[in-house]
């Protein structure tokens, strides 16, 4: 979890009751996998490309498609770790745990300790998010020592939180010793432990001590400064509770004047002075508070506390005036919240929560919330910064994105059908032409000729009929020698001396026969080699023929399969579109009712202050009249 994300969650946590609960939203997949892709991992890299843009839907799809074609050949099962993490990021918890557990349970593949640890770490986060704290603890305890520093610290934070959830404060305290000194996670864990302890009788002192440690941290880190303020605030109110106004004042004064806890500190400061009966001094921080955004709980509280302090000082006219100002402010807020009520019930509310571009699957919720009606941020800031609301908005956008995807495919199906139709037509034409080609008949003739040559060569070899392998020149030469023989025979009968010619004829005959015989092994080898090449060529031609014939016969079947697949998917798209549409409506209703509920609570609170101010004003008026 990066610093911004943690800060964001922290701000949210501040507006919540109780301990600092940091939701672990990120999957724990990290950018430190940079440039790990190798030859066979291009598709893995493509999935990462989408993951880094928080396009989880696309990243998962890419990985699933690559898995279908078995394109990712890494032996270390990284793709499953990535897939598990992606499911976790996309809030598909069942799938996430299924994939990660599958990876861990697979005994056939030896996975490295590093991958095993990361799988346990992701699985723990998954359980944690689902409030399965016992399972989360088991998973966290299985992790060995291969996590990087940041993840190791987060693991300890989760473990500390799990122990606190299980009321095992001793174990939670032990975990605190395992953090590195500078760890921000340690500060969070320490705060949570302190919050837990101060609520118990036996641990109150230790909780106090832990808060003290946090409040005295020397750091410039803005995140730590916020927790520091929060700890000082807790100590301030604890001191007030223990009737130690002096200590309370000190703690409240430690809080920064421009922090997130300033308003609560100003309120506390007033009450600490009030407890010491220093009413005039109590009014100062409350007046400063009253000049701030009136819709905040602390400001509303201050508005009604100011006249009460004036009453205590017996400055009744000023008290009356301040009651009137408070009543006016509450009335104004009630009127504005009524407008807000109308807005939430209008279609504009949902429109403003929709992402501008539905094709954009990773619109940050914060950017949507920023553009919403300002009355929402004035009166319902705590709701809008709550995990529940942000998750509901994010889910709404995801469902709308599903709708967008289905609509995209719905319009794409006719195109697929048309392409198939064209392919079918083209294929048929091409195959018909190819199959009608007269050259195809020659393949069979060629094959027969090859068989004949094979037989002939076999006979030559078995009979060593070397004369069968003579060259064309040698044939001519043999014929010439044969003719010469005939002529010499005729001359011999005429009584001429042809001894020299006969010797030459014998020599030439011998030479040629010697050459033919000695070259026979080479010639038979060359002939065999050529025959092998011919056999291969004929085999390839036959293979092509078989392939062509098979295409011819299987093509209609393939096309029918495509027809069926397209029809099947079209039906699925239609069914799912209906379901998604229902989910969109349901989620809109959920968002609206959640917001209206929060508004109702807020309005009730304002009404309560309003009624109390009215009552106090009436009481003061009566007492003044009685005096007169």
């Amino acid at each position: 979890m990066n610093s911004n994300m943690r800060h964001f969650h922290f701000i949210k946590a501040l507006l919540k009751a109780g301990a600092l609960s940091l939701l672990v939203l990120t999957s724990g997949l990290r950018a430190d996998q940079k440039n790990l892709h190798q030859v066979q991992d291009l598709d893995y890299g493509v999935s990462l490309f989408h993951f880094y843009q928080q396009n989880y839907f696309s990243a998962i799809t890419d990985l699933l498609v690559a898995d279908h074609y078995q394109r990712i050949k890494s032996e270390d099962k990284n793709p499953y770790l990535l897939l598990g993490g992606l499911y976790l990021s996309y809030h598909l918890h069942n799938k996430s745990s299924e994939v990660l557990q599958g990876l861990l349970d697979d005994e056939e593949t030896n996975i490295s300790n590093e991958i095993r640890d990361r799988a346990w770490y992701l699985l723990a986060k998954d359980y944690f998010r689902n409030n399965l704290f016992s399972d989360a603890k088991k998973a966290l305890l299985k992790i060995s020592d291969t996590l990087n520093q940041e993840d190791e610290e987060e693991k300890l934070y989760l473990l500390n939180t799990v122990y606190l959830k299980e009321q095992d404060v001793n174990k939670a305290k032990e975990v605190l010793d395992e953090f590195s000194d500078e760890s921000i996670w340690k500060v969070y864990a320490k705060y949570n432990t302190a919050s837990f302890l101060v609520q118990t009788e036996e641990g109150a002192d230790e909780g106090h001590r832990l808060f003290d440690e946090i409040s005295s941290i020397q750091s410039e880190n803005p995140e730590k400064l916020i927790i520091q303020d929060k700890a000082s605030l807790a100590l301030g109110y604890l001191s007030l509770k223990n009737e130690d106004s002096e200590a309370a004042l000190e703690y409240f004064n430690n809080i920064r004047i421009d922090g997130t806890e300033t308003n609560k500190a100003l309120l506390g400061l007033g009450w600490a002075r009030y407890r010491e009966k220093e009413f005039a001094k109590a009014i100062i921080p409350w007046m400063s508070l009253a000049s701030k955004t009136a819709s905040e709980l602390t400001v509303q509280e201050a508005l009604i506390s100011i006249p009460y302090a004036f009453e205590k000082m017996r400055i009744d006219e000023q008290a009356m005036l301040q009651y009137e100002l408070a009543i006016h402010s509450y009335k104004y807020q009630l009127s504005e919240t009524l407008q807000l009520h109308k807005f939430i019930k209008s279609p504009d509310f949902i429109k403003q929560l929709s992402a501008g571009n539905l094709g954009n699957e990773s619109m940050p919720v914060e950017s949507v919330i920023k553009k919403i009606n300002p009355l929402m941020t004035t009166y319902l800031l705590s709701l809008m910064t709550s995990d529940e609301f942000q998750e509901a908005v994010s889910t709404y956008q995801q469902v709308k994105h599903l709708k967008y995807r289905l609509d995209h495919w719905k319009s794409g199906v006719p195109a697929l059908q048309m392409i198939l139709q064209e392919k079918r037509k083209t294929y048929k034409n091409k195959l018909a032409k190819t199959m009608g080609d007269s050259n195809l008949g020659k393949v069979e003739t060629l094959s027969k000729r090859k068989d004949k040559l094979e037989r002939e060569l076999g006979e030559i070899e078995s009979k060593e009929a070397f004369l069968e392998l003579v060259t064309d020149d040698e044939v001519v030469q043999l014929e010439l020698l044969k003719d010469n023989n005939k002529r010499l025979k005729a001359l011999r009968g005429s009584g001429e001396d042809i001894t020299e010619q006969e010797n030459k004829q014998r020599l030439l005959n011998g030479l040629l026969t010697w050459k033919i015989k000695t070259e026979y092994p080479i010639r038979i080898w060359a002939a065999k080699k050529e025959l092998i090449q011919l056999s291969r060529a004929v085999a390839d031609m036959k293979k092509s023929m078989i392939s062509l014939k098979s295409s011819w016969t299987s093509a209609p079947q393939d096309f029918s399969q495509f027809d069926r697949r397209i029809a099947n998917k079209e039906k699925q798209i239609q069914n799912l579109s209906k379901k998604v549409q229902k989910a969109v409506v349901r989620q809109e209703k959920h968002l609206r009712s959640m917001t209206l509920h929060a508004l109702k609570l807020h309005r009730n609170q304002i009404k309560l202050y309003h009624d109390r101010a009215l009552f106090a004003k009436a009481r003061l008026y009566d007492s003044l009249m009685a005096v007169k």
Partner: protein
Amino acid sequence: MKTIITMCAVLGILFSHTLYAEEAEETSEKKDTTSAISRNIQNLKNEVLELNRDLFILEEDLLFSANTQVSVFLSVDVDTLFTLDSVQLKLDDKIVSNYLYTDRELKALNQGGVQKLYIGNLTTGEHELTAFFIGQGPSKRNFKRATTKVIDKSDSAKYVELKIVGNSSKEQPDFVVKVWE
């Protein structure tokens, strides 16, 4: 009395998880409904994901059969020497892709992501692939560079990776085309 109530209210904000019985009941009911909705949404998301996967596979089977398929990927190994604005891809002198990058995409590439730039079909034999990289080079100078590679398409799918890598000795990026079978 008022002081105590106020203090309790503020302390309540800080530490207490206690809810009134009525509110608690309502919240628990609300949680049940929320988790039912959440389960429903999870199932739906998974169903659409699976359908989306099947449709991509169907599309690929239909349009890009294994023996003609060619895919071009883009990866970046360095982010200091070159900031990519756009890539134009030509196959046999025909433009098949023009891509303009967003900041988010560049960040994803620099983190190690790989972009699938193009998928198409090619006949067997030799084909010329040319990629034009447009962006900003060292010292923020406009930079345009092209790289060409003749790829020999066999009867199996071809994967081409365009890599932008740093060359510290030249203080310039190199553009490499790698062909995987």
